[in-house]
């Protein structure tokens, strides 16, 4: 069996955390992976400087959907500044499977994080960091 599909991933895939939509919401964005059609939509609410609530919906491969689910747990309760700085590595560590060699799958894994960055960027008018350049073109 592929290393990519360890228990935790499958669990998040089959039982996604924070699945759904906040309406009304303070921030929203959606993103696709043009390669495979993965799609993630994220809504957030802020309370003071914190991301108080976050939800996602989406469709796509196990990696993209499990990663989104894991990301929800990482983000909720963090400050907006912390989330804005959240490095790719932290989500990848959480996912915990070897993806570096596979840029296609890396895009799946990082789709939700890009969408979160984009939502913050839009809500707060901050610039998308260089490493996400081009993300909004999707």
């Amino acid at each position, binding site marked *: *069996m592929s290393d990519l599909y360890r228990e935790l991933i499958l669990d998040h895939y089959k039982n996604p955390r924070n699945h759904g939509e906040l309406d009304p919401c303070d921030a929203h964005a959606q993103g696709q992976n043009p390669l495979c059609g993965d799609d993630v939509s994220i809504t957030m609410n802020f309370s003071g400087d914190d991301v108080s609530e976050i939800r996602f919906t989406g469709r796509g491969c196990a990696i993209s959907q499990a990663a989104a689910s894991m990301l929800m747990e990482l983000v909720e309760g963090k400050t907006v500044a912390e989330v804005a700085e959240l490095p790719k590595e932290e989500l990848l560590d959480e996912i915990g499977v070897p993806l570096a060699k596979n840029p296609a799958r890396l895009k799946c894994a990082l789709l939700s994080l890009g969408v979160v960055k984009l939502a913050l960027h839009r809500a707060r008018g901050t610039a998308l960091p260089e490493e996400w350049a081009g993300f909004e073109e999707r």
Partner: protein
Amino acid sequence: MSSLTTPTALDVPRIRADFPVFEERFNGRELAFLDSANSSQKPRHVLEGLTEFYEHSYSNVHRAVYELGERATAAYEGAREKVRVLLGADSTREIVFTRNGTEALNLVAYAWGLSELGPGDVVVSTVLEHHSNFVPWQYVAKRSGAEFAMLGADAAGELDLEQLDEIERRGRIRLVALGLISNSIGTVNPVEEVAAWAREREALTVVDACQAAPHRQLDVATLGADFVALTGHKMLGPSGIGVLWGRQELLSAMEPFNLGGEMIRSVSERETTWNELPNKFEAGTPPIAQAYGLGLAVDYLTNVGLDRIEAHEHDLTVYAMEQLATAEGVSVLGPPPERRGGIVSFTIDCAHPHDVAQILDSHGVAVRAGHHCTQPAMEHFGIPATTRASFYLYNTREDVDRLLEGLAGVRATFG
């Protein structure tokens, strides 16, 4: 198949020995490469020929008076002649070398479309097309004010020619673009019939033969088309080379596409005139070695026999469809084997195609997952993506068995 007798079977082990990639092991196993519709592997004959060419015959072409230039030009123009013979074209003037299959189609869209299309005109593509034979037409239609129409298909993924009547009511049909074999679900389209329909309306037919040329004998006259596009990397050739065949009168009358060196007759501040065919459409230094390499690939294919390759792939397709029919939760898209090329696209109820392909990879089975650059077709079937196995001369029934074994692994993980 073009011959009456059944072609003799391929000697697949001997063929595999010509492809260095099969000597390597992937996750400890020989590679079951089932992604040739994406791009094929290359035989030694092509690779060694390329190196030899660069070592002993390389220079720019056409322009050089010295010995190396003669050799390079002979190699490049020799490849054009090989492609001419492969397609049954009348003249090498009709064979244009491009960057890939996509550029061959864009050449027609730009050079013919931008000048010829206008409001009231209709350009037709189909729901089964690869994006490369869909988006260029959609784009030039938009730029020129013409209408873009998409011919639909039935539930099995076969074109619904009855829709042509409705499309015709939308304006003057100027061009119909369609593929000979669908790359995503394998349908063989009734190109001759559509071309005849178009001809009756004085419309042009552009045939995307990227998935057909590697796998069966073609003859441009029989197809009845005006333009035919193919791509080298899917037919054992190098990357970086495609071919446009076009009818001489049309190519002669057309505006050029890319502008620059080699494609001109004379240049001055006031006026520039174009070179003769096919140079008019080959601006700048062409893909010299890549054309030569494609010629070597044509030699290899012709030597093995395209009829035999087609029969071999048909056998594998029938076998794969039988096997997949027995696999739990698997649905195969598209028509029956009689009207399909060596392509089998499917979904499995428990897992996303990307995850399927990933697990298959860990079994040493290479397939493609995704929309295969055919989003309209995916939308037609109401799915985002499929997993696709495609066959070529080096594949075996054992590769199909490996695919099935991998699918059992998918079910073990996701089922």
